[in-house]
């Protein structure tokens, strides 16, 4: 571990998660049971406050083919717009003991669908001097063929006013590209679903962030 001239250590290089990422992070999808507690497969319990929603989508490669071996993680604030983390010191927003705000899921080996049962997040404070951020879910995608995890965000179609004022969406040029982050709402028998397909490459390529 060699520091640079100023004493900083260089970050460990990323490598692809490969085709068998499920073994380590979601072993049930790989086809076996090993852990008593599978981390990240459930975001909400019966007592979690907030509007229950499902978010789902597919991931498409540069030819439009389904990416069926990806792992998607989400990180989001609670219904009041607060993250379950000590660095979030937003005053007046309660923490929910029943909501960590993090989940992980594999894309289905046949349908290519990823999905989470969660709650709709509240708006979170923006950076100092900026507007609050519109409700959003942070996504992080790793898979075979992806050398460094891809970060993006899911925003909600029915939050048009908040989206129009969102300091992150407003950075993105041309404005049409902002649409790649906005999930469309669909009402199904068992509740609201927001759908966001992610295009890794090519036409209507999703906006990915260097965070």
């Amino acid at each position, binding site marked *: *571990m060699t520091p640079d001239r100023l*004493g*900083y*250590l*260089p*970050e*460990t*290089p*990323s*490598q*692809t998660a*490969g*085709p*068998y*990422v499920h*073994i*380590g*992070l979601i*072993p049930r999808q*790989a086809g*076996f049971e*090993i*852990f008593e*507690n599978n*981390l990240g497969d459930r975001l909400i319990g019966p007592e979690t406050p907030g509007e229950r929603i499902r978010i789902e989508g597919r991931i498409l*490669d*540069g*030819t439009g083919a389904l*990416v069926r071996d990806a792992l998607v993680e989400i*990180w989001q604030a609670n219904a009041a717009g607060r*993250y*379950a*983390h000590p*660095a*979030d*010191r*937003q005053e007046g927003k309660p923490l929910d003991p029943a909501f*960590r*705000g*993090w989940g992980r899921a594999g894309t289905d080996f046949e349908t290519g669908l990823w999905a989470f049962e969660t709650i709709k997040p509240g708006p*979170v404070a923006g*950076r100092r001097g900026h507007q609050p951020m519109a409700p959003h879910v942070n996504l992080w995608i790793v898979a*075979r*063929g*992806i*050398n*460094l*995890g891809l*970060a993006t*965000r899911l925003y909600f179609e029915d939050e048009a006013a908040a989206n129009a004022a969102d300091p*992150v969406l407003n*950075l*993105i040029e041309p404005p049409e590209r902002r649409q790649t982050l906005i999930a469309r709402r669909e009402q199904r028998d068992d509740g609201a679903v927001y759908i966001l397909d992610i295009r890794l*490459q*090519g036409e209507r390529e999703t*906006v*990915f*962030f*260097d*965070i």
Partner: protein
Amino acid sequence: MNPESEFLQRDPAAHPPAFTPIYKTSVLRSPRLPLWSLQNSLSEMTGPVFAQGELGALDNDLVRNHAQDGGAPIGERIIVHGRVLDGGARPVPGVLVEFWQANAAGRYRHRNDRFEAPIDPNFGGCGRVLTDAEGRWHFRTIKPGPYPYRNRVNDWRPAHIHFSVFGAGFAQRLVTQMYFEGDPLIPHDSIIATIPDPAARERLVARLDLGASVPLHTLAYRWDIVLRGRRSTLFENKLQGN
């Protein structure tokens, strides 16, 4: 908002670019447009927090965590250990480190792995651990075997263990692979070759650590993981009027 929580920007030279034709799957799975750079907000500076009680007692012992009654996996028993540090060389305590790997024969316990080497009935191939107050972690396992994969006609992965690491914030999230010192397949590997800088490749190679081995029992390898640094100096706060 807490300025000392902001992360230093990622150095792209430390990582493989997205588009690396030597690794063919990356060709169609790499964005063509530039990433949009975001100054850190709470969404990037925070991330999930895990507790010891969420892990099982055997989660960091791959020799035992999938062994059937009285059985044990075949292969070279090793301890793998190291620290999680940030770019400021500070330990990162209490973060989740997860790992997965093939068995001694190079076969993964995965429904999609069709390599003809056998599954080991006593080996699952995954585990996890939380770093301690000094950022240290360790686990016991079987040294994985190399395996072939469809890339070029005769590509073989060097022995490796996949790692997933959470930092203090979601922006530090990292997935990578650890290789073993002296493995002659490393210079031929198409995936480690996605990293242009040879010094960066070297940082993925664990060293044989006789000092940490258990005599007459288990060899050891050491590998430290470095996550992105963060702003930390007092004058940063003052400059921003705190």
